[in-house]
Protein backbone atom coordinates (compact mmCIF):
# COMPACT_ATOMS: atom_id res chain seq x y z
CA UNK A 1 0.00 0.00 0.00
CA UNK A 2 1.25 3.44 -0.92
CA UNK A 3 1.98 5.74 1.99
CA UNK A 4 1.11 9.43 1.90
CA UNK A 5 4.04 10.95 3.77
CA UNK A 6 2.86 14.53 3.93
CA UNK A 7 2.12 17.69 2.01
CA UNK A 8 4.34 20.55 0.92
CA UNK A 9 2.95 23.87 -0.20
CA UNK A 10 4.74 26.86 -1.63
CA UNK A 11 4.33 29.93 -3.79
CA UNK A 12 5.72 29.61 -7.31
CA UNK A 13 6.47 33.18 -8.43
CA UNK A 14 8.63 33.16 -11.63
CA UNK A 15 11.10 35.62 -10.07
CA UNK A 16 12.13 32.89 -7.60
CA UNK A 17 13.68 31.05 -10.54
CA UNK A 18 15.72 34.13 -11.38
CA UNK A 19 16.90 34.46 -7.77
CA UNK A 20 18.02 30.82 -7.75
CA UNK A 21 19.73 31.27 -11.10
CA UNK A 22 21.66 34.29 -9.82
CA UNK A 23 22.41 32.72 -6.42
CA UNK A 24 20.58 35.51 -4.61
CA UNK A 25 19.23 33.31 -1.83
CA UNK A 26 21.08 35.13 0.93
CA UNK A 27 20.53 38.69 -0.27
CA UNK A 28 18.36 40.80 2.05
CA UNK A 29 15.42 40.74 -0.37
CA UNK A 30 15.34 36.95 -0.80
CA UNK A 31 16.72 35.60 2.49
CA UNK A 32 13.44 35.75 4.46
CA UNK A 33 11.84 33.61 1.79
CA UNK A 34 14.63 31.09 1.14
CA UNK A 35 15.29 30.62 4.87
CA UNK A 36 11.86 29.00 5.01
CA UNK A 37 13.24 26.07 3.00
CA UNK A 38 15.86 24.82 5.44
CA UNK A 39 13.12 22.96 7.27
CA UNK A 40 11.63 21.77 3.96
CA UNK A 41 14.94 20.14 3.02
CA UNK A 42 15.20 18.41 6.41
CA UNK A 43 11.60 17.24 6.24
CA UNK A 44 11.97 15.81 2.74
CA UNK A 45 15.10 13.95 3.90
CA UNK A 46 13.01 12.52 6.74
CA UNK A 47 9.86 11.54 4.84
CA UNK A 48 11.72 10.32 1.72
CA UNK A 49 9.02 10.57 -0.94
CA UNK A 50 9.45 8.82 -4.27
CA UNK A 51 6.32 10.12 -5.96
CA UNK A 52 4.81 13.60 -5.92
CA UNK A 53 1.22 14.43 -6.79
CA UNK A 54 1.39 18.12 -7.71
CA UNK A 55 -1.60 20.44 -7.85
CA UNK A 56 -0.67 23.47 -9.88
CA UNK A 57 -1.96 25.78 -12.58
CA UNK A 58 -0.83 26.42 -16.11
CA UNK A 59 0.08 30.02 -17.02
CA UNK A 60 -0.58 29.80 -20.75
CA UNK A 61 2.20 27.39 -21.66
CA UNK A 62 0.35 24.11 -22.20
CA UNK A 63 -3.25 25.25 -22.31
CA UNK A 64 -4.88 27.98 -24.33
CA UNK A 65 -8.46 29.16 -24.44
CA UNK A 66 -9.21 26.85 -27.37
CA UNK A 67 -9.46 24.03 -24.83
CA UNK A 68 -9.15 24.91 -21.18
CA UNK A 69 -9.99 22.07 -18.78
CA UNK A 70 -11.30 22.70 -15.28
CA UNK A 71 -9.14 19.82 -13.99
CA UNK A 72 -6.42 18.20 -16.11
CA UNK A 73 -4.52 15.12 -14.95
CA UNK A 74 -1.18 14.31 -16.54
CA UNK A 75 -0.68 10.68 -17.61
CA UNK A 76 2.63 10.94 -19.45
CA UNK A 77 5.88 9.04 -18.98
CA UNK A 78 7.73 12.34 -18.90
CA UNK A 79 7.00 16.02 -18.72
CA UNK A 80 9.03 18.85 -20.16
CA UNK A 81 9.23 22.54 -19.52
CA UNK A 82 9.32 24.90 -22.51
CA UNK A 83 9.73 28.58 -23.31
CA UNK A 84 6.95 30.41 -21.46
CA UNK A 85 7.45 33.47 -23.63
CA UNK A 86 10.45 35.09 -22.01
CA UNK A 87 13.21 32.90 -23.45
CA UNK A 88 14.45 31.95 -19.97
CA UNK A 89 16.62 28.85 -19.37
CA UNK A 90 14.44 25.72 -19.39
CA UNK A 91 13.78 23.76 -16.25
CA UNK A 92 14.69 20.08 -15.96
CA UNK A 93 12.26 17.44 -17.20
CA UNK A 94 10.26 15.23 -14.85
CA UNK A 95 9.64 11.49 -14.91
CA UNK A 96 5.97 10.61 -14.81
CA UNK A 97 4.16 7.69 -13.22
CA UNK A 98 1.50 6.81 -15.81
CA UNK A 99 0.10 3.81 -13.93
CA UNK A 100 -0.58 5.90 -10.85
CA UNK A 101 -1.94 8.71 -13.06
CA UNK A 102 -4.47 6.32 -14.58
CA UNK A 103 -5.43 4.99 -11.16
CA UNK A 104 -6.07 8.57 -10.04
CA UNK A 105 -8.11 9.24 -13.19
CA UNK A 106 -10.16 6.05 -12.74
CA UNK A 107 -10.94 7.05 -9.17
CA UNK A 108 -11.82 10.62 -10.08
CA UNK A 109 -14.24 9.55 -12.82
CA UNK A 110 -15.79 6.93 -10.54
CA UNK A 111 -16.27 9.72 -7.97
CA UNK A 112 -18.08 11.85 -10.59
CA UNK A 113 -15.32 14.28 -11.43
CA UNK A 114 -14.79 15.15 -15.08
CA UNK A 115 -11.06 15.53 -15.67
CA UNK A 116 -9.28 16.00 -18.96
CA UNK A 117 -6.60 13.32 -19.37
CA UNK A 118 -3.27 14.56 -20.70
CA UNK A 119 -0.85 12.02 -22.11
CA UNK A 120 1.35 14.88 -23.15
CA UNK A 121 1.67 18.02 -21.08
CA UNK A 122 4.19 20.81 -20.81
CA UNK A 123 4.76 22.00 -17.26
CA UNK A 124 5.64 25.56 -16.38
CA UNK A 125 7.22 27.43 -13.47
CA UNK A 126 4.26 26.52 -11.27
CA UNK A 127 5.61 23.00 -11.13
CA UNK A 128 9.32 23.58 -11.64
CA UNK A 129 9.94 26.29 -9.04
CA UNK A 130 8.55 24.33 -6.09
CA UNK A 131 10.88 21.49 -7.14
CA UNK A 132 13.90 23.79 -7.49
CA UNK A 133 13.12 25.08 -4.01
CA UNK A 134 12.62 21.63 -2.49
CA UNK A 135 15.58 19.85 -4.07
CA UNK A 136 18.16 22.50 -4.97
CA UNK A 137 21.11 21.56 -7.13
CA UNK A 138 20.10 17.97 -7.89
CA UNK A 139 20.88 16.67 -11.37
CA UNK A 140 17.58 14.81 -11.61
CA UNK A 141 14.46 14.93 -9.47
CA UNK A 142 14.33 12.21 -6.80
CA UNK A 143 10.58 11.71 -7.33
CA UNK A 144 8.26 10.80 -10.17
CA UNK A 145 5.27 13.05 -10.63
CA UNK A 146 1.56 13.02 -11.27
CA UNK A 147 0.84 16.62 -12.26
CA UNK A 148 -2.69 17.96 -11.89
CA UNK A 149 -3.61 21.35 -13.34
CA UNK A 150 -6.53 23.36 -12.00
CA UNK A 151 -8.03 26.13 -14.12
CA UNK A 152 -7.24 29.50 -12.54
CA UNK A 153 -7.38 31.40 -15.85
CA UNK A 154 -10.84 31.25 -17.36
CA UNK A 155 -13.79 32.01 -15.12
CA UNK A 156 -15.92 30.23 -14.07
CA UNK A 157 -13.22 28.53 -11.98
CA UNK A 158 -14.11 25.48 -9.92
CA UNK A 159 -15.28 26.49 -6.45
CA UNK A 160 -13.05 25.99 -3.43
CA UNK A 161 -15.58 23.38 -2.29
CA UNK A 162 -15.22 21.52 -5.58
CA UNK A 163 -11.41 21.77 -5.43
CA UNK A 164 -11.38 20.30 -1.92
CA UNK A 165 -13.72 17.47 -2.95
CA UNK A 166 -11.54 16.85 -6.00
CA UNK A 167 -8.47 16.59 -3.77
CA UNK A 168 -10.28 14.21 -1.46
CA UNK A 169 -11.03 11.97 -4.41
CA UNK A 170 -7.32 11.99 -5.26
CA UNK A 171 -6.72 10.96 -1.65
CA UNK A 172 -9.02 7.97 -2.09
CA UNK A 173 -7.01 7.05 -5.19
CA UNK A 174 -3.71 7.25 -3.32
CA UNK A 175 -5.08 5.34 -0.32
CA UNK A 176 -6.21 2.52 -2.62
CA UNK A 177 -3.06 2.36 -4.75
CA UNK A 178 -1.47 -1.08 -4.23
CA UNK A 179 2.10 0.10 -4.91
CA UNK A 180 4.66 0.67 -2.16
CA UNK A 181 5.44 4.25 -3.14
CA UNK A 182 5.92 7.01 -0.61
CA UNK A 183 3.80 9.86 -1.91
CA UNK A 184 4.18 13.55 -1.14
CA UNK A 185 1.34 15.85 -2.07
CA UNK A 186 2.30 19.29 -3.34
CA UNK A 187 0.20 22.40 -3.73
CA UNK A 188 1.74 25.43 -5.46
CA UNK A 189 0.96 29.10 -6.07
CA UNK A 190 -0.53 31.97 -4.14
CA UNK A 191 -0.91 33.27 -1.67
CA UNK A 192 -2.59 36.65 -2.12
CA UNK A 193 -1.51 38.61 -5.18
CA UNK A 194 -2.93 40.52 -8.09
CA UNK A 195 -0.99 41.30 -11.25
CA UNK A 196 -3.70 42.97 -13.32
CA UNK A 197 -5.87 46.01 -13.13
CA UNK A 198 -5.85 49.19 -11.10
CA UNK A 199 -5.69 47.04 -7.95
CA UNK A 200 -2.39 45.45 -9.09
CA UNK A 201 -0.08 44.91 -6.14
CA UNK A 202 -2.92 44.01 -3.79
CA UNK A 203 -2.03 41.52 -1.06
CA UNK A 204 -3.95 40.50 2.05
CA UNK A 205 -1.99 39.05 4.98
CA UNK A 206 -5.17 38.71 7.02
CA UNK A 207 -6.84 36.38 4.52
CA UNK A 208 -3.59 34.51 3.96
CA UNK A 209 -3.31 33.94 7.72
CA UNK A 210 -6.88 32.67 7.76
CA UNK A 211 -5.93 30.15 5.04
CA UNK A 212 -2.72 29.06 6.73
CA UNK A 213 -4.40 28.80 10.14
CA UNK A 214 -7.22 26.59 8.87
CA UNK A 215 -5.59 24.48 6.19
CA UNK A 216 -4.39 21.73 8.53
CA UNK A 217 -7.36 21.36 10.84
CA UNK A 218 -10.37 22.84 9.12
CA UNK A 219 -9.84 23.08 5.36
CA UNK A 220 -13.60 23.26 4.83
CA UNK A 221 -13.41 26.75 6.34
CA UNK A 222 -11.66 27.84 3.14
CA UNK A 223 -14.58 26.61 1.05
CA UNK A 224 -17.13 28.99 2.54
CA UNK A 225 -15.93 31.75 0.22
CA UNK A 226 -17.09 31.82 -3.38
CA UNK A 227 -14.52 32.36 -6.13
CA UNK A 228 -15.69 35.94 -6.35
CA UNK A 229 -15.08 36.39 -2.62
CA UNK A 230 -11.67 34.74 -2.88
CA UNK A 231 -10.70 37.16 -5.66
CA UNK A 232 -11.88 40.04 -3.49
CA UNK A 233 -9.93 38.75 -0.48
CA UNK A 234 -6.89 37.36 -2.23
CA UNK A 235 -6.49 39.06 -5.60
CA UNK A 236 -7.08 37.83 -9.12
CA UNK A 237 -4.10 35.47 -8.95
CA UNK A 238 -4.65 34.69 -5.28
CA UNK A 239 -7.16 32.14 -6.55
CA UNK A 240 -4.15 29.86 -6.94
CA UNK A 241 -5.01 28.93 -3.35
CA UNK A 242 -7.30 26.40 -5.09
CA UNK A 243 -4.15 24.31 -5.66
CA UNK A 244 -3.43 24.40 -1.92
CA UNK A 245 -7.00 23.46 -1.07
CA UNK A 246 -7.04 20.52 -3.49
CA UNK A 247 -3.65 19.34 -2.23
CA UNK A 248 -4.93 19.55 1.34
CA UNK A 249 -7.81 17.28 0.33
CA UNK A 250 -5.39 14.81 -1.21
CA UNK A 251 -3.36 14.63 2.00
CA UNK A 252 -6.23 13.01 3.88
CA UNK A 253 -8.75 13.67 6.62
CA UNK A 254 -6.42 14.89 9.35
CA UNK A 255 -3.15 16.80 9.32
CA UNK A 256 -0.69 18.53 11.59
CA UNK A 257 1.33 21.63 10.78
CA UNK A 258 5.08 20.99 10.80
CA UNK A 259 6.41 24.25 9.44
CA UNK A 260 5.26 27.57 8.15
CA UNK A 261 6.92 30.58 6.58
CA UNK A 262 5.23 33.72 5.32
CA UNK A 263 6.86 36.75 3.75
CA UNK A 264 5.81 39.90 1.92
CA UNK A 265 6.74 40.63 -0.83
CA UNK A 266 8.33 38.28 -3.31
CA UNK A 267 7.84 40.10 -6.60
CA UNK A 268 4.14 41.13 -6.40
CA UNK A 269 3.19 38.23 -4.17
CA UNK A 270 2.65 37.31 -0.54
CA UNK A 271 4.85 34.21 -0.42
CA UNK A 272 4.10 31.27 1.84
CA UNK A 273 5.62 27.88 2.51
CA UNK A 274 3.93 25.19 4.56
CA UNK A 275 4.55 21.57 5.55
CA UNK A 276 1.84 19.28 6.86
CA UNK A 277 2.20 15.78 8.24
CA UNK A 278 -0.66 13.35 7.98
CA UNK A 279 -1.87 12.39 11.46
Amino acid at each position, binding site marked *: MAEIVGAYFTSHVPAIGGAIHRGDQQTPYWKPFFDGFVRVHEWLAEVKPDVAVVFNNDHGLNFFLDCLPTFAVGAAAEYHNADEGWGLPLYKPFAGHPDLSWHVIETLVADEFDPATCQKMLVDHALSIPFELAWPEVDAWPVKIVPIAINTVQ*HPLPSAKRALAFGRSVHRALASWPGAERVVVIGTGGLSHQLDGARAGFMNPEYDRFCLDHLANDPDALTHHSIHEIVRLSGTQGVEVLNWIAARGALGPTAREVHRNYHIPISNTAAATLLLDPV
Partner: protein
Amino acid sequence: MADPERDPPIPGTTLFDGDAAVKGYALNAMCYSFNDTANRQAFVDDEAAYCAKFALTPAQRQAVADRDVLGMIAAGGNIYYLAKLAGIFGLNVQDVGALQTGRTVAEFKQFLLDQGKELAHG
Protein backbone atom coordinates in the same frame (compact mmCIF):
# COMPACT_ATOMS: atom_id res chain seq x y z
CA MET B 1 -21.66 36.75 -16.58
CA ALA B 2 -21.39 37.99 -12.99
CA ASP B 3 -24.53 38.58 -10.95
CA PRO B 4 -23.90 42.07 -9.51
CA GLU B 5 -26.39 41.42 -6.68
CA ARG B 6 -24.54 38.40 -5.41
CA ASP B 7 -21.10 39.48 -6.55
CA PRO B 8 -20.64 43.25 -6.30
CA PRO B 9 -17.80 44.49 -8.52
CA ILE B 10 -14.33 44.48 -7.02
CA PRO B 11 -12.70 47.88 -7.52
CA GLY B 12 -9.77 47.88 -9.95
CA THR B 13 -10.39 44.23 -10.79
CA THR B 14 -11.67 42.46 -13.88
CA LEU B 15 -12.65 38.80 -13.72
CA PHE B 16 -11.66 37.02 -16.92
CA ASP B 17 -15.07 35.49 -17.54
CA GLY B 18 -16.89 34.49 -20.71
CA ASP B 19 -17.67 38.09 -21.67
CA ALA B 20 -14.00 39.02 -21.43
CA ALA B 21 -12.94 35.85 -23.21
CA VAL B 22 -15.26 36.51 -26.15
CA LYS B 23 -14.01 40.08 -26.42
CA GLY B 24 -10.35 39.21 -25.98
CA TYR B 25 -9.84 36.05 -28.01
CA ALA B 26 -7.76 37.59 -30.82
CA LEU B 27 -5.46 39.50 -28.46
CA ASN B 28 -5.01 36.51 -26.17
CA ALA B 29 -4.33 34.21 -29.14
CA MET B 30 -1.63 36.59 -30.35
CA CYS B 31 -0.04 36.75 -26.91
CA TYR B 32 -0.17 32.96 -26.53
CA SER B 33 1.77 32.69 -29.80
CA PHE B 34 4.66 34.50 -28.09
CA ASN B 35 5.68 31.28 -26.35
CA ASP B 36 7.53 30.76 -29.62
CA THR B 37 10.63 32.89 -29.97
CA ALA B 38 10.21 33.15 -33.75
CA ASN B 39 6.79 34.69 -33.21
CA ARG B 40 8.20 37.20 -30.74
CA GLN B 41 10.76 38.19 -33.34
CA ALA B 42 8.08 38.47 -36.03
CA PHE B 43 6.14 40.84 -33.76
CA VAL B 44 9.24 42.95 -33.11
CA ASP B 45 10.06 43.02 -36.83
CA ASP B 46 6.62 44.23 -37.90
CA GLU B 47 4.22 44.88 -35.08
CA ALA B 48 1.37 46.10 -37.28
CA ALA B 49 1.54 43.11 -39.61
CA TYR B 50 1.67 40.69 -36.72
CA CYS B 51 -1.36 42.27 -35.03
CA ALA B 52 -3.20 42.22 -38.35
CA LYS B 53 -2.42 38.52 -38.79
CA PHE B 54 -4.25 37.82 -35.53
CA ALA B 55 -7.12 40.15 -36.49
CA LEU B 56 -6.88 42.30 -33.39
CA THR B 57 -9.82 44.64 -32.89
CA PRO B 58 -9.12 48.38 -33.25
CA ALA B 59 -9.30 48.78 -29.45
CA GLN B 60 -6.82 45.93 -28.98
CA ARG B 61 -4.54 47.30 -31.67
CA GLN B 62 -4.59 50.74 -30.05
CA ALA B 63 -3.89 49.38 -26.58
CA VAL B 64 -0.95 47.34 -27.88
CA ALA B 65 0.43 50.32 -29.81
CA ASP B 66 0.13 52.47 -26.68
CA ARG B 67 1.59 49.77 -24.34
CA ASP B 68 -1.62 50.46 -22.41
CA VAL B 69 -2.08 47.44 -20.13
CA LEU B 70 -5.37 48.61 -18.64
CA GLY B 71 -6.60 49.16 -22.21
CA MET B 72 -5.58 45.62 -23.14
CA ILE B 73 -7.49 44.26 -20.16
CA ALA B 74 -10.52 46.37 -21.03
CA ALA B 75 -10.27 44.88 -24.53
CA GLY B 76 -10.46 41.34 -23.11
CA GLY B 77 -6.78 40.60 -22.52
CA ASN B 78 -5.90 38.10 -19.82
CA ILE B 79 -2.83 38.89 -17.74
CA TYR B 80 -1.38 35.37 -18.09
CA TYR B 81 -1.11 35.90 -21.85
CA LEU B 82 -0.42 39.64 -21.70
CA ALA B 83 2.64 38.92 -19.53
CA LYS B 84 4.26 37.34 -22.58
CA LEU B 85 3.69 40.52 -24.59
CA ALA B 86 4.97 42.61 -21.69
CA GLY B 87 8.14 40.50 -21.81
CA ILE B 88 8.73 41.59 -25.41
CA PHE B 89 8.47 45.19 -24.27
CA GLY B 90 11.02 44.42 -21.53
CA LEU B 91 8.46 44.92 -18.77
CA ASN B 92 8.35 42.74 -15.68
CA VAL B 93 5.39 42.44 -13.31
CA GLN B 94 6.51 45.44 -11.23
CA ASP B 95 6.73 47.55 -14.37
CA VAL B 96 3.29 46.35 -15.38
CA GLY B 97 1.97 47.03 -11.89
CA ALA B 98 3.39 50.57 -11.99
CA LEU B 99 1.84 51.23 -15.41
CA GLN B 100 -1.56 50.07 -14.24
CA THR B 101 -1.60 51.91 -10.94
CA GLY B 102 -0.19 55.23 -12.16
CA ARG B 103 2.88 54.86 -9.95
CA THR B 104 6.53 55.03 -10.85
CA VAL B 105 8.23 51.65 -10.68
CA ALA B 106 10.06 52.74 -7.55
CA GLU B 107 6.78 53.80 -5.95
CA PHE B 108 5.12 50.53 -6.92
CA LYS B 109 7.99 48.50 -5.44
CA GLN B 110 7.78 50.52 -2.25
CA PHE B 111 4.02 49.94 -2.16
CA LEU B 112 4.74 46.19 -2.24
CA LEU B 113 7.44 46.39 0.42
CA ASP B 114 5.22 48.48 2.68
CA GLN B 115 2.63 45.73 2.81
CA GLY B 116 5.19 43.46 4.51
CA LYS B 117 6.23 45.96 7.16
CA GLU B 118 3.75 44.90 9.81
CA LEU B 119 4.64 41.23 9.61
CA ALA B 120 6.45 39.30 12.31
CA HIS B 121 8.21 36.43 10.60
CA GLY B 122 7.80 32.68 11.04
